[in-house]
């Protein structure tokens, strides 16, 4: 049994910055290498982490509030037996929830071949947003994960919710 089975690999609560992301990636990389996780799985996990952390970084400050706690991001990466589970959450405006969940539901309905087709058409038509995103991140997460993306949201008040997505990745190579 791996020395990191059923354990926390990395976690973070607070305000994300580019430097925090660097540190999380470095810590994760070291732990995975130390525990001899297959290199293709390390790379897929790295891709999932980058896309989800950068997504949280772009959107963490989009809640117009004086309450600084609403800018906090909570993330954790754990390994349960043979499944990596990344949970990452941030506050969002309730009016954005429908668009976000529709997008995730749409991605979850696609198999790997359909995701690959969507990636090709999306990259050809992508425009970089003011926040630096190309709209490809969630497709990349789904392609790397090869599992359904789970989500939930907890309402804080009539404007704000805490939105969490959970991404799974098998520790052993698997094709969808």
């Amino acid at each position, binding site marked *: 049994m791996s020395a990191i089975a059923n354990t926390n690999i990395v976690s973070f609560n607070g305000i994300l910055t580019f430097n925090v992301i*660097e540190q999380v990636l470095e810590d994760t990389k070291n732990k995975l290498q130390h525990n001899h996780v297959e290199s*293709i799985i390390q790379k897929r996990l790295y891709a999932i982490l*980058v*896309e989800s952390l*950068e997504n949280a970084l772009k959107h963490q400050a989009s809640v117009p509030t004086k309450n600084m706690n609403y800018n906090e991001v909570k993330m954790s990466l754990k390994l349960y037996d043979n499944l990596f589970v990344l949970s990452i959450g941030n506050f969002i405006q309730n009016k954005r929830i429908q668009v976000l969940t529709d997008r995730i539901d749409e991605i979850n309905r696609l198999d790997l071949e359909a995701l*690959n087709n969507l990636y*090709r058409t999306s*990259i050809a038509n992508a425009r*970089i947003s003011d926040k630096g995103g190309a709209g490809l991140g969630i497709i990349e997460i789904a392609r*790397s994960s090869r599992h359904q993306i789970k989500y939930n949201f907890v309402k804080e008040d009539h404007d704000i919710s805490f939105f969490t997505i959970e991404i799974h990745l098998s520790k052993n190579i698997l094709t969808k």
Partner: protein
Amino acid sequence: MTPIVIAETTATPKVILDYTNNKFEIEGCSRPEDVRDFYLPIINWLDLFKNNISEEHINAHKEDPMVFNFKFDYFNSSSAKFILDILVLINQIHTTGINTKINWHYDENDEDMHEVGEELSEVVDLPFEYVIVPKKAQI
């Protein structure tokens, strides 16, 4: 043209665009803090080159192609858009009559990087040569 030489960091690749020495290379990991700031000088360099191609350039590369080497360990999704833009410009340089070649290098453990190369080649409609790099394992 003045060459572009950018040193590698943990978040950005090494870049060399050097016409005099026929060396065109991007190597490493790409997840810049500001993807636009990082890639725009590269896009602008290729665009300027494309707009100033002469018969002399075309003749100079009849036997000796302009070889573009892509050696990514990883790139994020917003970098992918700019990499596609770079490939589109290389394709445009190619269609002006300059002999070009794209080498897409990937770690022998990283079939995903091979597949993404095939996807980009298909999207931009430009053939790549694939170069397998012996085991590296590090991200």
